[in-house]
C-alpha cells in the first residue's frame, strides 16, 4: 500500500486504514460518541454526508482555517466518522452518493497534483495512485499525460459523451494523450467504486448513544432520494423503425432482430406475441424464429441466459439508432418514456 503523509491523507483519506489512523492519533471511536470536545467532528462528518447527498463537493470550513495542524486531522476524522455514521445507518443510497462526492473531491486534488510543476512529490504521488490503486501506468509527455490505449478503453467505456470515444482522442503509437483534468476525470467512477467498496467492506461498529441522533437524521435525509417512476407504453424510434422494416418485408439485420426481441421481451411480451412480427422477413421460418426468441428469452439453451436489450451505444454502432428529441439522452431503449413522478 502507498505510504501517506499528513498532507496526502487529508486529500485522499480513503487510502488510510481507518482503525490504524485513530490508534496512531490516540483516539477510540467511543470518545467521538461521548467527548463533548469532539462533537464538532461528528457534526462535520454529518455535514460531509449531507453535502455529498446534495451532490456537492465537501469543503471543510472552520473558524481558524489557516492552521494546518487543525485542518488536516479534521479533514481525515470527519471522513472516518462519516463512514461510521453511514455504516450505522446502512443506507445504500447515501453510501453511493457519498462515495461519488468523495471521488470528485479526490479528483480535484489529483488534477491539481498532476499539474503542479512546482511540487514534484505531489505529481509523483498522484501518478502512484493511478498505478497502485487503478493499475494504470500514466506518464508525463510535455503538458499531457499518456496512457496505453487498452488501459484507456477499460475506463473510458464508462462514459457516454462522444468526446471520450477513442476516435475523438489524440492517439499516437499505442498511447492516448490526456490533459491532467481528463486523466483525473477518467478514473472518477472507479474512484467512487473503490471508496464504496472500502465502505461496504468496513465493519459496522456497535451503535453508541452519541451517534443515534445523527443516524436518525440520515434516515430522513435518505427519504428525499427515493424516486418513483412510471413507464409509458410508447416505443422508441429504433424499435418503431425495426417493426416498420419488418412489416415492409425488408431484411432486418441479426442485431436488429435481437434488439427488437429483447426490447419486447423486456416490456413483458411473450414469445407467442413477438414471433408473428417476423413473418414478413425474407427468410422467415416460424420454427426457427420461435426457437431463436426462446433462446433470447432464456427459455431454452444450455445456460438459460436471458438477454437484455442492448444499449443505445451498441444500437448506434449497428446503425439501428434513429434517435428523436423524445429519446432525451437515455442510454438504453428500455428507458424510453420512463418518467420520474
Amino acid at each position: 500500500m502507498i505510504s501517506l503523509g499528513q498532507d496526502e491523507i487529508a486529500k485522499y483519506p480513503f487510502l488510510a486504514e481507518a482503525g490504524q489512523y485513530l490508534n496512531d492519533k490516540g483516539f477510540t471511536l467511543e470518545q467521538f460518541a461521548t467527548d463533548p470536545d469532539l462533537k464538532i467532528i461528528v457534526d462535520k462528518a454529518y455535514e460531509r454526508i449531507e453535502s455529498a447527498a446534495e451532490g456537492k463537493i465537501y469543503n471543510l470550513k472552520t473558524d481558524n482555517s489557516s492552521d494546518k495542524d487543525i485542518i488536516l486531522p479534521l479533514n481525515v476524522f470527519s471522513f472516518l466518522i462519516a463512514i461510521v455514521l453511514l455504516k450505522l445507518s446502512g443506507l445504500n443510497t447515501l453510501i453511493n452518493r457519498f462515495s461519488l462526492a468523495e471521488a470528485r473531491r479526490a479528483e480535484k486534488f489529483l488534477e491539481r497534483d498532476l499539474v503542479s510543476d512546482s511540487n514534484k512529490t505531489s505529481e509523483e504521488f498522484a501518478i502512484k495512485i493511478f498505478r497502485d490503486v487503478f493499475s494504470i501506468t500514466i506518464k508525463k509527455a510535455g503538458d499531457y499525460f499518456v496512457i496505453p490505449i487498452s488501459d484507456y478503453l477499460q475506463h473510458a467505456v464508462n462514459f457516454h459523451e462522444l468526446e471520450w470515444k477513442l476516435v475523438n482522442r489524440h492517439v499516437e503509437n499505442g498511447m492516448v494523450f490526456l490533459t491532467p483534468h481528463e486523466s483525473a476525470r477518467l478514473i472518477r467512477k472507479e474512484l467512487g467504486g473503490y471508496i464504496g467498496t472500502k465502505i461496504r467492506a468496513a465493519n459496522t461498529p456497535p451503535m453508541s448513544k452519541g451517534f443515534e441522533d445523527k443516524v436518525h437524521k440520515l434516515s430522513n435525509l435518505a427519504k428525499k432520494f427515493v424516486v418513483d417512476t412510471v413507464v409509458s407504453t410508447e416505443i422508441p424510434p429504433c424499435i418503431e423503425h425495426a417493426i416498420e422494416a419488418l412489416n415492409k418485408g425488408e431484411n432486418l439485420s441479426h442485431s436488429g432482430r435481437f434488439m427488437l426481441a429483447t426490447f419486447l421481451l423486456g416490456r413483458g411480451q411473450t414469445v407467442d406475441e413477438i414471433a408473428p412480427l417476423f413473418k414478413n422477413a425474407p427468410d422467415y421460418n416460424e420454427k426457427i424464429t420461435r426457437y431463436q426468441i426462446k433462446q433470447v428469452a432464456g427459455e431454452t439453451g444450455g445456460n438459460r441466459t436471458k438477454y437484455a436489450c442492448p444499449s443505445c451505444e451498441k444500437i448506434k454502432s449497428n446503425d439501428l439508432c434513429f434517435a428523436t428529441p423524445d429519446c432525451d439522452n437515455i442510454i438504453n431503449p428500455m428507458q424510453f418514456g420512463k418518467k420520474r413522478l
Partner: protein
Amino acid sequence: MLENNLKFLEETFKQYYFDHFDLIRVPDRSTEREYGYKKFNSGMSRHISLKTDKDLHLLLMTNLPSDVFCSNGYYSFPNLPMTEKDWKEADLIFDIDAKDLNLPCRKDHTCIKCTSCGEVSLLQDVCPKCKSNKLDRLSLPCQNCISGVKKEVLNLVKILTTDLRIDDKNIRISFSGNEGFHLHVTNSSYNQLGSKERGDLIDYIMFRRAIPERFGFKKNNPSRSSFPDLDDPGWSGRVAKDLFGSKSKRSKGITKIISDGYPVYRQRLEEMGKNSIGVKIDPNVTVDIHRIFRLEGSLNSKSGLAKLACENIEKFNPYTEACLIGDEPVEISANSPIEFRLKNRGFGPYTNEKISVPKYAAAYMLCKGIANLA
C-alpha cells in the same frame, strides 16, 4: 441440400482434408481453445476441446464437417457450457468481406436463387419464374472485389501497426475461403479487452462517431490553427489528407469548412467514415470475445475454397491459390447466369446444362447452390 450432392461434398471435403493434413493444424495454446464444426444440412456442434493436430484430423475424418471453427478466446475449461468456461482473454479478430464494401461491380456478379422454387437468375427483386420475393443472393468470384478488400486490409494493418502499435509479427492475414479476408492478432495488449471496449476500438477503426471539436472545429469560435494537418499522426493526418488533398490546399479548405459551418462539417466527417477513410470491418466479428472463427486450412462450405494464410496479400490470388480441391471431371447440371473464373479457367454461363467440369468447379457450384450432380 439433395442427398447425392451432400454425399459428394462430404466425400470431396474428406478427400481434401486427407490430402492436406499439413495445412490443418491446431493453433497455439490449443488446450485453452474451444472448437466447433458444422455438417452439411445440420446445425453447429461446439464446446469441443482438442489437444493436438492428430485430435483435429480425427475429428475431420470421423465427423465429415462442412465448416470447422476455433475460438479467438482462451478458457480454463473450453469444453464446458459458456458460463462455466472461465474466459481468460481473446485474440483480436477482424473480418473484411466484399459484401460490406458494396462496390458498384457487385450487381454484375451477384445472382439470386428463389427460396420457393429454386430458380437461379440474374439480380432482380422478384423471382422471374414464380414471382416470390423470398430470395437468396449469391455472389460469384470477382477480382475487383478482392482488390477492394485487399486495400481495406492494408489500411487496417496500417492503423493496427501505427496507431495501435501492434507488432506486425503478431498479425496473421488469411483469405476467408469465400470473398473476404480475416486478420488475427495474437499476443497484444488488447487481448484482455471485453466486448464493450472492443466496440470503441471498432468505432475508432471504422472512423465512426467522430466529432468536429476533435478535428479542429469548435462550435462557437473555430480557430484556423486547430484544424488537422497532413503530417499529424493518426486520424488527424488521415482526415487532413482526405479533406485537403495537399498542404497547399489546406488554407483554402479550412476557409470553406468554416464558412459551411459546424453541422456540414459534422456530416462530412460522418460520410468520410462510411465512404472513404473508415476501414470496412465487420463490427459483429471484432466485438465478439467468445466467437468461434473459421479455422485456417479448413474449407468454407459457401464455396469449397480453403481459408488460407497469405504471406504476401498483394500478390495473393484466392481463386487459384485457395482452390485446392482436385480436378478430376465431374458431371453436373448447372444453372449459372453469370460467368466466373477459377484456377485461371472460365466457367459459364450455364442455363440448366449438363456439363463435365473439374471437381473444384463442381464443388464450388454445388456449394453456391447453382448446380446439382447430374
